[in-house]
């Protein structure tokens, strides 16, 4: 089921009174694919494509609570920089409606664009000093593949989620989501462009639920 489906499904429950927004937590671990590169001191995350599947290297996952939640009152702002001819971070989950800035931290031009169905945009060429920092609002949930027209190898992933509750795991796949509302939801783990796992969760106030995606 894709993100749009989840959103539609959750719309049925949109009228239900939301009792409490707080205090429930989920922690656990996502089993990540085996890393293909030997660990190094200064870890860099990059997007690799293996058999047409986009994922970070070393692998990371995004865990998010799928449900119907109110839109944020003011749009939030995030950044994906371009440093050393790579996107930093290489994988960024954002809530729908978030404006993402793409600061150029290199000494060269970059031209960030995306032809992804979730968002087509083209920031054009810009220098590091470009002000305001070129940015784009992502208002459709989905995976946006970021590219640079000048540096063909550059790839970044922007995961636009229709939920405020999401987190990127650490390298071992561990995660902890807190401040969650109580109720019945679906917990999802985005592992790569083709793999998203999900589990139903029943959240209770003050309780910490342990969910593993193994």
């Amino acid at each position, binding site marked *: 089921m894709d993100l749009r489906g989840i959103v539609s499904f959750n719309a049925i429950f949109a009228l239900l009174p939301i009792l409490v927004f707080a205090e429930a937590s989920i922690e656990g671990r996502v089993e990540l694919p085996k890393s293909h590169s030997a660990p190094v001191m200064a870890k860099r995350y990059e997007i690799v494509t293996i*058999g047409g599947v986009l994922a970070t290297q070393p692998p990371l996952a995004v865990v998010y609570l799928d449900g119907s939640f109110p839109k944020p009152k003011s749009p939030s702002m995030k950044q994906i920089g371009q440093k050393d001819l790579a996107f930093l971070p290489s994988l960024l989950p954002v809530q729908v409606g978030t404006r993402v800035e793409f600061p150029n931290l290199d000494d060269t031009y970059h031209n960030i664009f995306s032809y992804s169905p979730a968002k087509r945009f083209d920031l054009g060429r810009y220098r590091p000093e470009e002000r305001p920092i070129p940015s784009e609002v992502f208002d459709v949930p989905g995976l946006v593949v970021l*590219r640079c*027209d000048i540096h063909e190898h550059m790839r970044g992933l922007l995961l636009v989620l229709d939920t405020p509750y999401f987190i990127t795991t650490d390298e071992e796949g561990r995660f902890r989501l807190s401040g969650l509302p109580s109720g019945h939801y679906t917990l999802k783990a985005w592992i790569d462009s083709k793999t998203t796992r999900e589990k139903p969760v029943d959240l209770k106030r003050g309780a910490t639920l342990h969910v593993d995606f193994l």
Partner: protein
Amino acid sequence: MMSFRTKLLTAMMLVVSALTILGLYLAQRTVAAGAEHDLQANFQAEVSWLHKVQELRHAALLERCGALVAKPRIHAALEDNALDLLYPSAKDELRDLMEGDEPSPEQAARTLHARFYRFLNGTGAVLSPPSPKDIGDLSADTAGQLAFKKLPEVTQIGYLPERTDVAEKTVDEIMAVPIFSTETGDVISALVVGFEPFEFAGQRTGAGMKSGIWLNGILHLPGLSQSAQAYLGGKITNTVTKSDRAQSNFTVSVNGAPHLLFYERLNPDSLFPPAYEICIYPLANSMARLHQLRWQIAGAGALLLLGGFVASNFVAARLSAPVEKLAVDSERNRTQRKRAEAALASTSEELERSTRYSADASHQLKTPVTILRAGLEALLTREDFDPGVYHELSVLLHQIHRLTGVIDDLLLLSLIDAGHLQIESEPINLSQLVEEWLDDLGALPDSLDVKIEKKFPAELYVAGEKRYISLIVQNLLENSRKYNRPEGRICVAGHKDTDEIVLNIGNTGRPITRDAQEHIFERFHRGSGGTAISGHGLGLNLARELARLHGGDLRLVGSDSDWTEFEVRFRVAQQAPSRAAEIV
């Protein structure tokens, strides 16, 4: 019948002609091969120049296309499911490839200007552009020729004939560059770009070479008439379908002029239909040069033949003259020889017969003569006859002695003639022998008062058998006395002459006539003046035969006025006996 000279001349002319023709053939072949080699080298230089330029252009085009298909926007459109953005993105990316006015063919070759481009989808079909005008119009049929059944994994080069939107018949060079997904590594698309083909004609003035493209049985060669293109196209089709060679050349006639046609596969191993590059190179100049050279060679050959004829004639005349003379002489000699042989055979036969006859006669005579002599001698011993009878008996006995001498001489001669006489050679003191005979001569009752002169050393050793040497000396001395005149003189002289002993015996008296001189050594010849003198005409003949048998000779030195002189030569004895006592 041909004379020797004509035969010789003919043979020499044949040899000279053969050599000349061989020489001309070799010279002509060398010249022709050289000319062809030059031509080929010239042509290859042109072709190789063309190929270098084409290779450079291809490399440039490939690099260009390779860079284009690596563009992130094109990859993004193909990989991120944004095909609607493919052509718009490509329009930006390939703008420099397409923008600008339509350049001239030469500019096109240099600027790598593309005429059109299309993308193929994952199944190899052409992705329709939203606005074909911007990326080069193509008819549906022409565009269909860009498609593949399966996307190629390597760049394919092909040629696209007859753009329908252009009045002029042209061929575009097309390059299909595969596009690999950066995500899966698979071929997800291909960019097909059409370029103005490289035109060789006019690039190098003076070379006269024209180049074009053969495609699908049709030759596209600007600068040639339609009919010539159709004709050549057919020829090339025949050649390339029969042979699988990627390149070759052959000679063709274009508008009546000979041309060298070179073809080379432009797109080997391509999935597009095979196309051949065609270059034609006019041979008229080379042929004219070759023709002129052949004429020069032929002229030189004619001169050579003429010279050869004159030289042969001269040489034949020189060579044949002695041979012809020899032939004539030989014919004459043969006739003479035959005649001589016949005469010899006849003579030999006669001689043999006479020899046999002489020998037989001598033997037959000897016995009765001996009986006769014995009878006469017996009668002489009787004492009851008249003194006149004794005288008669004495005369008869003397005649019997003469007869015995004749028979002995004849017998000896017949032995010599038959070759049966064997000489047992030993050293003989000739001086002593002569002395003895002179003594005998002196003892003879003689009415002539002949004076004898002796001029020889005491010892003159000759090689021979004593009785025969003695016979020779006796004969000569007897003759010198017999034919002398009263109060005449005999001179006997001997000396050594290198390896010969020469004995001269001369005497006064009537000379032998000049006519008789020629015959004195013949048998039974007697001097005309000497008929009254006893003798039987065998002595000189016998003496000469014996002298020759001993390796010497006997000759008449001269006979005139009052002097006749003979000379006999003997071989010197190699070893004289050590003691004088041995010499009797």
